[in-house]
């Protein structure tokens, strides 16, 4: 029976503050709803919200119940109507201690799915009047029937016929049992979904896990068929306290005396009975006092148990049961399933991780319930769902996740085993341990505390003398336990020791890890009452069904079966007794393990997997596209330039926001030429060379090497060798290793490299093993040039090759370059020294500020165009004299010097004329206009 506001059975408790709790619940529910709604809207998978308007109305109706249907009781109910009515109806019945508001959330959700949902407070709860009769057929079940009558008259409800609504009934715990009882007594109910319900109340409150008869093992969760076992006093006390205290009542104010009648229930019976009918009250009092039940009590419990009507339930039934439920365990659902299936009902079983004192059924369970009704109460306005079938599912707690928390895995099987045909699979593990004496201490004081919701599992008893322990060997393979484990035990009296001829024992099963960590399997212990023990010590053998559980037992762990004499949750005999407990029968523990497969709920990382495959596909695709573009992107070579090592046309390199580094530069290097690129530092020489080598992208213009257009990494560049600014070597390798490594990186055959020759060019001993890091600048420079010459490229591009070399080395380098060009290869070198260019090159290109200033053969550049400079004693007279010459160009004076463009006249003519005029000539030289300008620029750079 689900406790909406768990109240402690002890009067000392001061922590029940239901109003606060309720508002807290409301706030959290609202928050959860908001979050869920937000998530749904975010995902955009659901229909838009406006179609899901739910309206609710509250009604109080009068019902007549009791043995002669003459008790008038007012029932408080709320009806939630979907946007489109009439619709199939769903009645939701709350758990023990709750009221109609307990199921507001599920009710609204179901209404949003299109059902007309009715929740009501059962008699004795909430604002309904009357007393609690524990789902008595005469009271609660009669009330429910009359609610169906009322329902049939409502315009929001679809009817099957006159006074017959199309209705499904779901309920939680106490309400779940009501749904079963109603379905068994009212043929108008079309489908039910009892959650955490019981089958037999006497077996729930007076369980006996031991049975002299063999316990069938066709279904996985079959319990022992005995009743009138051991009184589950703690739970009964809690339920009774809930009934007497009632929800929303502070327990401390509950009177123990008659002095507070004003606040007591409207009754003439003792206030200790609270809101219970006198029959229920009497039964409880008897049970609590004696620990055993009389015939009358058993009859009362039997009548209030669904077991009495399950023979008549042949409608679709969805059984939802908690896996950790010490009150209404898995065996209760198992019994319901067997009986309803035998009666012809369609049964689907869902076990969820939770129970009456732990987690309530979650959204997934309610979704399954919604699906069940959507399928079995068909209506055009309700979105159709696939047939939920008659399968079986349960949940296994996985290990702690990377994200924190442990996942719940849902396992599914095609059907609940044992209902038709196939039996549940079981695995028997041998148990070891010799018979042991166990003592029931006087007073039956509990040392074991399992099955109490408050009990910590660590405190589970190990009291000497009270517990017998039997163990399995460590498991070789992981084993998934799903259902009620069974074993067979022998119990005997000990002659000469006290015994009443009947033993009360509690069996528990533990999962013990390699390090000794024990965790109980299943909620609570299995109480046994073994009767008719012969006084002479002969043993009685019983089959024992242990508490139901779903648990994955890891390989390497072993199981431990403990049999103890006391359990605080149960009423043990007060008389001292000694018994011997031992293994019997096969001496095994039989563990049900339903063959199933794991499904969904995040176990399949779909996002990551699909994302990964999409990503890989994209990578492949872009690769293919890139390859395709490369194939078609090659530009045609210019056949006219096939023998011209280098042509640049209108080359521009501009950096945004800065000076243009190279501006419209066109130059040409022919075969066998040594072309010098002359210009002061910063003129853009290195930029040009880097563009030629594909290191920089030109802003505009074009470079062609042997007719092939140069882009970064253009294959034609393999015919060039280069040295740019500084040498680049791996400092930890020797000279030869560096050259070999570099050549290997070009991927060309080693035979083409000519390491020996090139090292000789560099003037470096090839056997030197020194690391390049230790080289001086000159040596590195020479090695750099040597690297450029590897493979004797057709075009050598050298940037300031003589920097850092001493004069003899410079001289040698010039000679080498000249001889290199003499073989038909070409050299393009840059320098800021005119003398250098003058002595090495045959062609020169002069640059200034990125622009081409002049280009031509060195002699042309040096000679100028017939311009000469005369140093004379009388420059003015000399100028006048020269201007008289026919065809002479510009003549200008510059201090002592006279610059003249002689035009067609050779210099000798000019000298003669000047001598004739009596001018004294100190010097006649070709005017080196470029050098003047150039030196000025260099001079500026150098200061």
């Amino acid at each position, binding site marked *: 029976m689900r406790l909406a506001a768990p109240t402690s059975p002890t009067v000392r408790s001061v922590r029940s503050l239901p109003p606060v709790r309720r508002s807290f619940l409301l706030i959290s529910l609202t928050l959860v709803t908001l979050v869920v709604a937000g998530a749904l809207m975010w995902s955009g998978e659901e229909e838009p919200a406006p179609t899901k308007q739910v309206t609710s109305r509250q009604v109080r109706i009068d019902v007549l119940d009791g043995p002669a249907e003459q008790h008038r009781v007012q029932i408080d109910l709320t009806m939630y109507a979907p946007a489109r009515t009439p619709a199939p109806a769903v009645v939701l019945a709350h758990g023990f201690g709750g009221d109609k508001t307990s199921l507001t959330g599920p009710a609204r959700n179901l209404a949003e799915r299109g059902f007309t949902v009715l929740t009501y407070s059962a008699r004795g709860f909430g604002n309904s009047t009357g007393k609690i009769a524990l789902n008595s057929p005469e009271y609660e079940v009669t009330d429910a029937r009359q609610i169906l009558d009322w329902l049939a008259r409502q315009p929001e409800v679809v009817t099957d016929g006159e006074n017959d609504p199309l209705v499904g009934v779901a309920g939680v715990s106490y309400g779940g049992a009501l749904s079963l009882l109603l379905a068994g007594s009212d043929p108008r109910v079309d489908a039910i979904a009892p959650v955490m319900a019981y089958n037999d109340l006497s077996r729930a409150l007076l369980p006996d896990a031991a049975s002299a008869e063999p316990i069938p093992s066709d279904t996985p969760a079959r319990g022992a068929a005995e009743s009138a076992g051991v009184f589950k006093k703690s739970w009964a006390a809690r339920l009774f306290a809930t009934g007497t205290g009632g929800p929303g009542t502070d327990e401390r104010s509950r009177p123990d005396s008659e002095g507070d009648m004003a606040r007591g229930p409207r009754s003439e019976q003792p206030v200790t009975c609270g809101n219970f009918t006198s029959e229920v009250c009497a039964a409880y009092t008897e049970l609590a006092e004696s620990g055993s039940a009389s015939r009358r009590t058993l009859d009362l419990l039997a009548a209030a148990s669904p077991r009495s009507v399950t023979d008549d339930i042949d409608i679709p039934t969805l059984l939802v049961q908690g896996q950790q439920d010490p009150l209404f365990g898995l065996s209760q659902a198992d019994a319901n399933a067997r009986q309803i299936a035998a009666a012809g009902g369609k049964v689907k079983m869902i076990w969820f991780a939770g129970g009456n004192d732990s987690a309530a059924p979650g959204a997934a369970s309610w979704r399954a319930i919604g699906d069940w009704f959507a399928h079995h109460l068909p209506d055009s306005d309700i979105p159709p769902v696939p047939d939920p079938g008659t399968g079986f599912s349960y949940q296994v707690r996985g290990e702690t*996740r*990377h994200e924190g928390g442990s996942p719940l895995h849902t396992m599914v099987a095609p059907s609940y085993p044992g209902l038709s045909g196939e039996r549940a699979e079981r695995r028997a593990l041998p148990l070891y341990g010799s018979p042991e004496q166990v003592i029931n201490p006087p007073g039956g004081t509990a040392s074991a505390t399992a099955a109490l919701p408050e009990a910590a599992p660590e405190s589970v008893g190990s009291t000497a003398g009270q517990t017998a322990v039997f163990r399995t060997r460590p498991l070789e393979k992981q084993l998934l336990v799903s259902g009620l484990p069974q074993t067979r035990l022998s119990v005997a009296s000990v002659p000469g020791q006290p015994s009443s001829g009947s033993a009360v024992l509690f069996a528990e099963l533990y999962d013990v890890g390699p*390090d000794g960590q024990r965790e109980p399997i299943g909620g609570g212990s299995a109480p046994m009452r073994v009767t008719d023990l012969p006084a002479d010590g002969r043993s009685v053998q019983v089959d024992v069904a242990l508490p139901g559980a779903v648990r994955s037992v890891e390989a390497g762990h072993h199981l431990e079966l403990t049999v103890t004499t006391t359990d605080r949750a149960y009423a043990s005999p007060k008389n001292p007794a000694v018994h011997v407990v031992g293994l019997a029968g096969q001496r095994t523990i039989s563990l049900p393990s339903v063959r199933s497969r794991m499904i969904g709920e995040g176990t399949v990382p779909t996002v990551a997997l699909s994302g990964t495959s999409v990503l890989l596909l994209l990578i492949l695709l872009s690769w293919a596209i890139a390859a395709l573009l490369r194939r078609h992107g090659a530009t045609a070579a210019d056949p006219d330039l096939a023998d011209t090592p280098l042509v640049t046309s209108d080359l521009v390199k501009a950096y945004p926001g800065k000076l243009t580094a190279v501006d419209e530069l066109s130059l040409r290097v022919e075969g066998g030429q040594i072309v010098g690129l002359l210009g002061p530092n910063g003129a853009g020489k290195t930029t040009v060379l*880097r563009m030629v080598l594909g290191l920089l992208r030109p802003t505009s213009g074009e470079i062609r090497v042997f007719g092939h257009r140069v882009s970064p990494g253009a294959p034609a560049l393999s015919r060039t060798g280069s040295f740019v600014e500084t040498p680049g070597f791996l400092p930890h390798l020797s000279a030869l290793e560096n050259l070999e490594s570099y050549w290997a*990186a070009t991927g060309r*055959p080693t035979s083409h490299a000519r390491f020996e020759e090139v090292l000789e060019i560099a003037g470096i001993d090839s056997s030197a093993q020194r690391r390049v890091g230790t080289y001086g600048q000159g040596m590195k420079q020479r090695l750099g040039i040597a690297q450029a010459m590897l493979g004797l490229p057709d075009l050598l591009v050298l940037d300031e090759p003589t920097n850092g070399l001493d004069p003899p080395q410079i001289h040698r380098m010039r000679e080498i370059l000249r001889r290199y060009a003499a073989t038909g290869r070409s050299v393009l070198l840059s320098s800021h020294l005119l003398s250098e260019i003058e002595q090495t090159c045959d062609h020169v290109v002069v640059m200034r500020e990125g622009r081409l200033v002049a280009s031509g053969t060195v002699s042309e550049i040096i000679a100028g165009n017939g311009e000469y400079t005369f140093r004379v004693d009388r420059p003015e007279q000399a100028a006048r004299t020269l201007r008289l010459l026919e065809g002479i160009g510009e003549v200008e004076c510059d201090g002592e010097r006279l610059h003249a463009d002689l035009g067609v006249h050779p210099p000798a003519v000019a000298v003669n004329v000047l001598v004739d005029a009596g001018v004294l000539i100190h010097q006649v030289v070709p005017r080196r206009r470029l050098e003047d300008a150039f030196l000025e620029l260099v001079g500026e750079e150098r200061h």
Partner: protein
Amino acid sequence: MRESRTDPLSFEIPTSTSTPDRSDGSAPGYRANRTLPVRVELRRQFTRRRTRLGLGCLAVLPLLLLLAFELGGDDHDSHHTLADTATFGGMNFAAFTLFAATNFLLVVIVALFFGDTVAGEASWSSLRYLLAAPIPRTRLLRQKALAAAVLSCFGLALMVLMALGTGLLWYGGDPLLGSTDEVLGLSAGLLRLGGGCLFLTLHLMWIAGLALWLSVSIDAPLGAVGSAVLVSILSQILDEISALGPLRMLLPTHYSTAWTELLGDEVDWTALANGVFSGLVYGTLFTALALHHFRRKDITG
């Protein structure tokens, strides 16, 4: 510097032979797809002290851990972390070593190998010569990344094998005790460890990609390596802030230890797949950025 002979060369430079007309204008023997073979690049890297130091660190780590365990007392009776179970056997020791290296050492080593690829060459000024050789830029980046990947995988394998060897010798071949007390035999345990290495290989692609990108963006190799490690540390710090909630899933380091799932009996494949996916996404993103950047880059260094 001593040579000053008038005849500079003792040999004749052969005359230029007119090259047969190769359609792409390349020199004889040159093929773009043969440039910078991984083997050559590996030799270039493997001869470096930095590479050897990194690999040495990985190889020595198990020995250091062993020493630490032997010097420190064994005073824990619970075993809920890998550190608690490290001395249970060789495989547990290897698992712990891998775990200890996951968040920092491996990140640093991978960042080192990948961050040094282009930036290292740039710092030696040798990058321009490789590119002018010419090695196509995409190919240069690819080959260097491949070599770095080989080195990284080698380092990871070296560390795990060293740890396994040390652990098996010292602690024996006891089965692997997983995070939920289940026990895995030798072959199963080795398989799980191998799976862990595989996961890390894929997951660490993010730092590899990031370091590669930084390597082409920053010319100083240590700057690239350091920045990548810094990003990893920042990501780990942010990952500690639980208030960020699911946003933390976006952090590249969020799934770095997801491989420990493999040591459990029941593997959370979601975390593993997410980790691989996250590594792949970031790795691809950063690699694409690196390619984009490098292909358009003006090489001045």
